[in-house]
């Protein structure tokens, strides 16, 4: 019998094991350059996973986050290219994510369309909008100060802030408890006086905000507004949350699990690169790892 506290944070032990193995078998892993890269490359996946954690615990799913990354990125880049101050442009990028999330939540709760379908449609719409907005071109010539956002220190601080706030909201506020309740048993939540629709709408706005922020970070790292940015990121985010122990049926999951999950997947990518595994094999390995994680999780519950 494994103690609950260890079991609940199993992903960190797995992550640690992964790091130890890579440190022992490769020369390149345990260098400051490489670790800094891992941190920077995965900061946005982690931020997306934080938002996705709320959605998944509430029993829903958000497939639109990757496209929001693309849209928010080109919007922010375009505004800066037109001379809007960096701070305002970044704020607009994040707000565009909130707005798309709000729309997701509205359609889902008011028009009673399943989250999967709503966000699948939004994934197409937001991506299409990003292409149309830029005429499928890449926006360049961004101010230098914007690039600082994706420096190792800034990215780490941003990520730490996102996770700190997410943890506090999820574990220490009435709203956070309601998110778990809605995912655990929506009917019971409603009869307990929880305003289920409102909780769901807020959850999608949070996910949208995180996606908007991730979009800004990606644009900063690319130093460009690239309408294809963030493609398939929704899948990485969902994988991170699930590997971190959340249930796709809702009601179970933790924000630290999502963080651990994001870096587990990130370090895995890094390790496969260090071993020069071909990109095709990488895909298969990642898929297999996700399946194994899901099977282990099933056997636990």
């Amino acid at each position, binding site marked *: 019998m494994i103690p609950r506290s260890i079991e609940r944070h199993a992903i960190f032990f797995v992550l640690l094991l992964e790091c130890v193995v890579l440190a022992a078998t490769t020369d390149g892993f345990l260098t400051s350059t490489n670790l800094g890269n891992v941190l920077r490359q995965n900061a946005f996946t982690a931020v997306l996973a934080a938002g996705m954690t709320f959605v998944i615990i509430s029993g829903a799913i958000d497939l639109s986050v990757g496209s929001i990354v693309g849209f928010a990125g080109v919007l922010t880049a375009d505004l800066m290219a037109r001379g809007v101050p960096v701070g305002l442009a970044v704020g607009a990028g994040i707000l565009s994510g909130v707005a798309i999330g709000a729309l997701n939540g509205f359609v889902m709760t008011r028009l009673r369309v399943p989250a999967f379908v709503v966000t699948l449609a939004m994934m197409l719409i937001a991506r299409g909008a990003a292409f149309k907005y830029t005429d499928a071109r890449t926006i360049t010539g961004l101010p230098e100060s914007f690039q600082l956002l994706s420096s190792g220190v800034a990215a780490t601080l941003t990520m730490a802030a996102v996770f700190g706030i997410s943890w506090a909201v999820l574990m220490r506020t009435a709203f956070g*408890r309601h998110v778990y309740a809605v995912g655990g048993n929506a009917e019971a939540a409603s*009869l307990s*006086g929880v305003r289920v629709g409102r909780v769901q709408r807020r959850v999608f706005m949070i996910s949208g905000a995180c996606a908007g922020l991730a979009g800004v970070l990606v644009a900063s790292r690319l130093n460009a507004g690239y309408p294809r940015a963030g493609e398939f990121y929704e899948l990485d985010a969902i994988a991170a949350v699930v590997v971190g122990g959340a249930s796709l049926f809702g009601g179970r999951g933790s924000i630290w699990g999502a963080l651990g999950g994001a870096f587990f997947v990130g370090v895995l990518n890094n390790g496969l690169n260090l071993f020069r595994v071909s990109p095709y094999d990488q895909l298969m390995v990642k898929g297999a790892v996700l399946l194994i994680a899901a099977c282990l999780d099933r056997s636990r519950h």
Partner: protein
Amino acid sequence: MRRDCLRRASETVLAGRGLTKSFGGVTVLHDVDLRIQAGEVRALLGENGAGKSTLIKILTGAIVPDRGELHLAGQLMPLGDARRLRDAGIGVVYQEFTLVPDLSVAENIFLGREPGRLLMDRAAMRSAAVGAFRDLDIAIDVDAPVRSLRIAHQQLVEIARALISDARVVIFDEPTASLPPPDVARFLAVVRRLRERGLGILYTSHRLEEVFSIADTLTVLRDGSVVESCSMAGVSQRDVIRWMVGRDVSEEFPVRNPTLGDVVFEARAFSRLPRVQHVDVSVRRGEIVAVAGLVGAGRSAAALGFIGALRPVHARGGQLLLDRRIVTFASPSDALAEGVAYVTEDRKGRGLFPLMSVEANITISSLAAFARRNWIDRRLERSTASEIARACCVRASSLLQPIATLSGGNQQKALLGRYLVKPPRVLIVDEPTRGVDVGARAEIYALLDHLSREGMAIILISSDLTEVIGMADRVVVMRQGRTVRDLPRGEATAETVMSAATLQS
């Protein structure tokens, strides 16, 4: 009055002997004998929880009895083998339909036993289905998807399905519960035709007049045992009710001598079509009003309607008054804000959060009470939860353990406690002792009594007659979506309540 001997000439098609079954130490069926002759309709009667469903499940092979045997046409049958029993000729028509809406009538009838080897023999299926309905003298398009049929016709499809493998016995489990009255007569005619064909029929229904019009013999179960098994000749509805109810009100109930205050909550001609037709009910400060009736009478629907949680609703009418002020609640959270709480009957499905701790289950409705600007004060939350758990006698080794690990009784007490953190003025409890052991049951009664003494107005929805008579200061009886009687404590007896719940007045 036993006429079984007179019918000795006719053949016994189905016989159960000494059937006994217990679940988790509670005996739900004790040494039950049951015989069904060819060409007879035997009614199986009993209160909710008397053991009827368990008996039917044994006859159909859905569960295996601990003891006893089953004979079909003199042959010993394997127990708990649903497929064998069905193929041997025991057909069943359940209250809840088991049809697949998008498949055709013929496909539904043959679901799970499609003729043909690799490919379904659709022609054979079609013609057998047509033949089955011709035998029943019913016109139904066997190619139509079941979804497109009226409820009454869907039921006929169920019957055809029960008959298709040369059934010798057909069991009807509350077959008319969801049929509108005009269809009931037509349905009963079909049952008579089956009897004429020499089938043995076991028939359960809560509607006594229907039982009296169709049954030849009856078996009454009470607390898992057969209390009467005889011919219907010379039996009155009063007799049947007495056999079904039987028990005396025991001392497990607190002695009630309430001091009643003003009317706190009242529903006037309240309707939420289709399930709630016309409800008049009121409750005073310090009063416990029981709402009695059969399963499906619309009691829970009415309560859900009060707090704005009933779906779907096609039309609404009537008024709710809280302190003589007209109110409408758009959602349970509105109702709770005004002090009207509803504790669900469906503990697992609509009550508990199985993954959350006992504590979180208790505090979920009232987090605002210990949150400062949305931040939960965990210490206050913990102390409140343990206070409530103590007041409600919730026994748990830790309030941090998942609620799913508690016994049914402790889960129920915790669920009740959830709505007492911020004491409501009107508490509607729906079947608060269903699936609860005797000890916890007495604690729940004592708790409700205590709350009413403190001035809470309580509406107790219950299918347990003993509980209704034992707890209520007044009993309101519902039937088919309507309140039909309002009996003061003195007039409420098991007989008067049961009559009002079952008979057409």
